[in-house]
């Protein structure tokens, strides 16, 4: 316990300022965005992530976006455990044949209104795997996609910036 308290005090607040390229300060953007999200989605924006065959780097960066340094939750965006709780689906990876049914079922399990975001180069068009015998068509040909976050993998800052600017606009 003593170590925890010591480190808690020594470390202080580690959360980093994220530049959104907006005229307003980030803290203001954070709170404004929270209000915006609350207006549009009731409480928070809840995202369910599905890996359809990614190498794991995108997942690692999405997890990093939730760490205390980037702290995606401060903007009112949460990752949830079930598609039933989700407003948005975040898809990573080229769609492996084995994941096609799972992807569709996950999407179908989400309540309306809902939208889909793809994350990482593989999810756009299969990336380096697009010519494979086991990779299905693009995610956007299976379910409607409204936003793509490019990168291999996209950094946590990219992920947060893309998500926030999409939501603000």
């Amino acid at each position, binding site marked *: 316990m003593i170590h925890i308290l010591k480190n808690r005090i020594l470390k202080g607040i580690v959360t980093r300022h994220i530049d959104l390229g907006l005229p307003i300060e980030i803290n203001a953007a954070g709170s404004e965005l929270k209000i915006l999200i609350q207006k549009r989605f009731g409480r928070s924006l809840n995202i369910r992530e599905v890996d359809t065959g990614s190498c794991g780097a995108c997942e690692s960066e999405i997890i990093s976006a939730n760490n205390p340094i980037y702290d995606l939750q401060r903007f009112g965006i949460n990752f949830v*455990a079930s598609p039933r709780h989700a407003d948005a689906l975040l898809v990573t990876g080229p769609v492996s044949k084995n994941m096609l049914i799972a992807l569709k079922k996950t999407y179908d399990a989400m309540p309306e209104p809902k939208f889909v975001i793809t994350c990482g180069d593989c999810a756009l068009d299969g990336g380096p795997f697009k010519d494979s015998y086991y990779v299905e068509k693009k995610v956007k040909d299976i379910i409607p996609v409204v936003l793509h976050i490019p990168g291999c993998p996209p950094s946590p800052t990219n992920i947060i910036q893309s998500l926030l600017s999409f939501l603000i606009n």
Partner: protein
Amino acid sequence: MDSTEIITRIKNKLPGFDALSIAQNYPDEICIKISPQIFKDTCYVLHKILLSPVMMLFACDERKTASKFVINSVFVSLKSGQWVTVSMDLPQENPSFDSLAKTIHSAGLFEREIYEMFGIEPKGHPDLRRLRLHDEVWPQGNYPLRKDFKQACEGNLNEYKFNRVEGDGIFEVSVGPVHAGIIGPGHFRFSVAGEPIVNLEIRLGFTHRGVEKLFEDKNCFVAMRLSECISGDSSFAHSLSFVQAIEKICGSVIPAQAVYIRAIFLELERLYNHVNDIGGMAVDVGFSFPAAYASVLKEAILQLNYNLTGSRYLKKINVVGGILIDIDDAKKQLLLKSLENIKQDFNELVKMLYSSVSFMDRVDSTGVLRKKTAEDLGVVGIAGRASGIPLDLRKYFPSVYKEAKFKMAIQESGDVLARLRIRIFEFTESCRLIDEFTQKLSEGQKISVTPELKEGVALGYQEGWRGPVLYWLKIDSAGLIQRCKIVDPSFNNWQGLSYAVLGNIIPDFPLCNKSFDLSYSGNDL
């Protein structure tokens, strides 16, 4: 040990042994060609005398050039720091061979893989269900790694049959492929009697992308980038094994500076993954502060990677013949300074975990993988060392690690705590190694050579953070890849997990799983 000594030892155990050819292509590789009749016995003898599991077992389709299939089985001789490959030719019509799986358990999964990808039957194999090409979506009779495969033809679809445990009070709990957390897809079928797990069947292959086929007919310089996308958390280890195989074939001598820089990056990859796993274990027991603390630490290492190379996951820096990024004096200072802070924070993290009684209670004697089971399954890497298997390629193969007096971590108890301790020890050791390697760097040295592509076959191997990452490559004179066989340490270790959880309760499964932290994509390929 040279090839004649190995042959003598095989002959002592197997009087009828006769090799068709013996070649020592590289100082660390011995290749023995034998007839199919004695393949099974020879592999068994080698398995016994080298005390090695089957490290690789795979087929090559050479019907076009030589009207045959070739099966290669690779063993490791730790004593002499060598790889021993046993190979045999099979006829192109109705190819089959006697299964090794009943005598050498670690061959089992590889044989299933050969059967599903090439249609070569391992006769007498107890379980020939497919691993990656799911029966529900992939018609029977399509073998994608055969050279004449273009696209899947129509055929019957089947349903996968899970192993069933029957009896009073047995319940099945099925989980996945889409999990609650932000992780890869896999299906876990638990059979429980009350609380304890009596059987766990892990069905994988959900992230199968056909990468071995994608490598084929690609120029090896282009394929380099593909090797970085096999397993995102081991992208450097994978690309390093891949280039090592090509460099062996080309006979390139890598500048010393590049060798040290590569070793530094390999250790940095180990650092961020180890701290990530330690944090993950804290998450899975609900110990949130150390978990958050570890994620901050992981971020610091990823940031350091970025500042050194421009890539958080050390991608696009390896090239055939060397490395693209030099570590000059400024970067050296940055590296050493950051490492100092990272070490300090890491020690605090360890203190927090070790001083928490409830945390220790959760990890101690949970998820035990016995040494015998681990040996039989061919479990490697962290999981193997935690169960008392002293296999770490860094220790046994001549490299910069030997001169840095690398110390291998080893534990006996095989539980979650043992795997945690291995990581903690290795973290500290890796910091020391990076320190040592950094001292050897000097500014303005050559960091790459231009290789001359040649035709040939070679094995690339690196001890990634999870365990040995193996690449067996065959390239033609134009530098096009004919066959690339990849073995990620996850491949055999997933089986280890299904044995480690037996007798534990399902709430402890995430913890056991995290203590192995295996790659879905590295396994599924």
